[in-house]
C-alpha cells in the first residue's frame, strides 16, 4: 500500500508542477496572441469618422486618398486633384453643411428628407467634387463613386508623420513621432547611463574596498526598487526646472528630462550586471597581468573589460530595454508632444506613455483603441529583439570560455 501511495503522490506533484508550467507558458502565448489580434485590427480600417462616406464624381480617376491627404485637403494644403494622381483640376470640398450653399431650406426639407436626392445631384454635376457625408443620406441609384478614403495601411501607419487619433474628419495614425520619441529618449538615457554605470561597476568590482562595496552595492540595488512614479516626481520637481533654467527654455518637460530619469532608472541594471561580469574575471588572469608589471588601470582596461565585454554589452542592452518599456516616469517629465523631434530639448512622447495616456479615452474596440494595441505590438517587437540580442551575446560568451 505504502509504495503505491508514494508513487501516487509523486505523480500528483509532477502533474501539478506540469500544470503550473503549462499555464504560465499559455498565458504568455495568449497575451501575445490577443495583443497582435487587436493590434493588427487597425490595418485596412478607415480613419474617416464612422458612418461617413467619401464620394467623388464618376469621371474622377482617383481611387484612394490616404488619411494624411484628407487632412491636407481640409487644411487647404492640397488643392488640386493632380496631387492625388488625378486631373489638373482644383478640388471642390463638399461637407454636409455646405448643402445650404447650393439649395434652399425648403428643398432640403424639414427632416432632411430631400437630402439624398440633392446630394446625388451635387456629386453628379460637379466633376471636381470631393464629398463627405453620413452614409444614411446615401440615396438609391447614387450616381457618384465612393472612393477608398483614409484607409490605414502599413505604410501610412509606420511612415505617417502625425499622431492625432481624434482628428476630424480623418484620424491621423502615424507612429513615426512616437517611435522617434521613444528612440531619442532611450538613446539619450543610455548615453548618460552607460558611461556612469560602467564607471561605477569598475569602481565596485575592481577598486572599492570590501567595506565600501558592502555599503554601495545594496544602495545601488535599492535604486531598482523605487517605484517609477517616485522617479517621475523627482524628475518633475528637480530635473525639469533645472533643464528649463539651464537651457533657458519655455518648458523644461523635454526629451532630455526623460533621458535623465530613464538613465537613472537603468543604472542599477547596468551596474549590477556589468559588475557581476567583471567580478567573474578569473583572479589568476588579473594576477598574471599585474605580475607582468601592468598597472591596475592597465589591467582593468586591457584584461578585465575585454574579458567581461559580453556581460557589459548585455547590461547595456538590458538597460536600453528597461528604458524603452518604462511608462510612468517618462509620461510625467517628457511633455508628451507627438511631434517628430529635431532636438533632445523638445517635448517628446514615447510609445508606452502614449498607450498609458490615451487608452482611457479611446472607445472600446474603436480605431483609436486598436491603434494603441498596434503601438503595444511595436513595443513588444522592439523588446523582443533586444532580448534576442542579449541571448545571442550571452550565448556566444559561453562558447568563448571553453
Amino acid at each position, binding site marked *: 500500500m505504502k509504495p503505491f501511495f508514494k508513487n501516487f503522490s509523486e505523480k500528483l506533484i509532477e502533474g501539478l508542477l506540469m500544470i503550473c508550467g503549462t499555464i504560465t507558458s499559455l498565458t504568455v502565448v495568449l497575451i501575445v496572441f490577443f495583443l497582435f489580434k487587436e493590434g493588427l485590427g487597425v490595418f485596412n480600417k478607415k480613419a474617416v469618422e464612422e458612418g461617413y462616406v467619401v464620394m467623388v464624381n464618376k469621371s474622377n480617376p482617383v481611387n484612394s486618398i490616404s488619411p494624411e491627404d484628407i487632412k491636407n485637403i481640409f487644411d487647404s494644403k492640397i488643392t488640386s486633384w493632380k496631387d492625388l494622381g488625378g486631373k489638373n483640376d482644383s478640388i471642390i470640398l463638399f461637407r454636409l453643411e455646405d448643402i445650404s450653399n447650393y439649395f434652399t431650406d425648403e428643398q432640403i426639407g424639414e427632416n432632411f428628407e430631400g437630402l439624398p436626392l440633392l446630394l446625388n445631384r451635387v456629386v453628379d454635376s460637379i466633376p471636381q467634387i470631393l464629398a463627405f457625408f453620413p452614409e444614411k443620406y446615401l440615396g438609391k441609384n447614387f450616381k457618384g463613386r465612393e472612393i477608398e478614403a483614409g484607409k490605414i495601411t502599413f505604410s501610412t501607419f509606420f511612415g505617417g508623420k502625425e499622431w492625432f487619433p481624434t482628428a476630424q474628419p480623418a484620424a491621423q495614425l502615424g507612429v513615426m513621432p512616437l517611435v522617434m520619441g521613444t528612440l531619442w529618449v532611450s538613446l539619450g538615457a543610455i548615453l548618460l547611463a552607460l558611461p556612469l554605470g560602467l564607471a561605477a561597476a569598475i569602481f565596485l568590482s575592481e577598486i572599492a574596498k570590501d567595506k565600501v562595496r558592502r555599503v554601495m552595492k545594496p544602495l545601488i540595488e535599492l535604486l531598482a526598487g523605487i517605484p517609477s512614479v517616485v522617479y517621475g516626481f523627482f524628475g518633475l520637481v528637480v530635473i525639469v526646472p533645472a533643464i528649463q533654467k539651464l537651457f533657458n527654455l519655455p518648458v523644461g518637460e523635454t526629451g532630455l528630462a526623460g533621458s535623465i530619469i530613464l538613465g537613472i532608472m537603468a543604472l542599477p541594471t547596468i551596474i549590477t550586471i556589468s559588475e557581476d561580469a567583471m567580478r567573474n574575471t*578569473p583572479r*589568476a588572469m588579473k*594576477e598574471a597581468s599585474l605580475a*607582468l*608589471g601592468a*598597472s591596475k588601470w592597465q589591467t582593468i582596461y586591457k584584461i578585465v573589460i575585454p574579458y567581461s565585454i559580453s556581460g557589459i554589452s548585455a547590461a547595456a542592452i538590458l538597460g536600453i530595454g528597461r528604458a524603452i518599456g518604462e511608462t510612468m516616469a517618462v509620461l510625467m517629465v517628457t511633455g508628451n508632444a507627438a511631434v517628430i523631434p529635431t532636438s533632445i530639448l523638445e517635448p517628446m512622447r514615447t510609445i508606452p506613455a502614449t498607450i498609458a495616456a490615451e487608452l482611457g479615452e479611446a472607445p472600446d474596440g474603436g480605431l483609436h483603441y486598436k491603434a494603441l494595441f498596434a503601438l503595444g505590438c511595436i513595443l513588444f517587437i522592439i523588446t523582443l529583439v533586444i532580448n534576442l540580442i542579449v541571448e545571442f551575446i550571452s550565448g556566444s560568451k559561453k562558447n568563448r570560455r571553453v
Partner: protein
Amino acid sequence: MNKLESKQVNFYYGSSHALKDINLAIEANTVTALIGPSGCGKSTYLRLFNRMNDLISDTRLTGEVIIDGVNIYKKGINVDNLRKMTGMVFQKPNPFPKSIFENVAYGLRVNGITDKKFIEERVETTIKQVVLWDEVKDKLKKSAFELSGGQQQRLCIARAMAIQPSVILMDEPTSALDPISTSKVEELIHELKTKYTIVIVTHNMQQAARVSDHTAFFYLGELVEYGVTKQIFTNPNVERTQNYITGRFG
C-alpha cells in the same frame, strides 16, 4: 651575491600567522624548489617576491625580502617596476582572452614598448625559447584558448619571459598538465636556468628532485630545512623532512 633573500620574514593573513621567521638565501641562476604539504605557506612565500600578496586585503609582513640587495618592501619601491623584474607562472594555464601573439606581447605593450618590429622579434624569440614556435607559428593570430593545456602553459611561460625578468616564480606550473606536457615544461626549466633564477613551488616530490638544485621544505609556516636537493632527498638532516619526502605524512 645572493639573488633572492628573506630575513626574518613573518607574514600574517588577518590573525593567522602564515610564515614564521623565514630566513633563506637563493643564488642566481639556480632552480630552487619549495615543497611541503598544502597550506604550509610555500605559495605565500613565493608570492612575496613579486608582492602579489599586496592584492589580498588584511595582510601584514615583517622582516625583509631582498632582490639584488634591495629590500623590495621598503618605502618608495615602484611595485609595477618590481614586477617587471620577476616573471610569474601560475598553477593553471591562464592565457589572456587575446591572440597567441598578443599574449606574449602583452608585457611589452603595458610597459610602453610600441616599436612593432621589436615586439615581433621579441615574441618570436621568446616563443622559440619555450619550444612552442613550430606548433603555433601559423596561428599566431588565433585565440590562445585554442591551444592545449600544455601549450597554454608554455605560452604563459613565454609571456612571463618576454619582458626579460631575471627571476621566474612558478607556482605549481605543471599541476594541471598531463605527463608529456609536464616533462616538456621540466626540460624547459632546465634550459632556462642558465639565464634566470627560478623558484618553483611543487607538490610533486619527483619533480622537485628532477628539476631543482636546492630544495626548501616548509611545514606549518616554518622553513624546516633548506639545502642541496640531492642531500635533502637522500640524507635530510631533520626527521620531519625525511617523513615527508618518503610519504609518511603530508
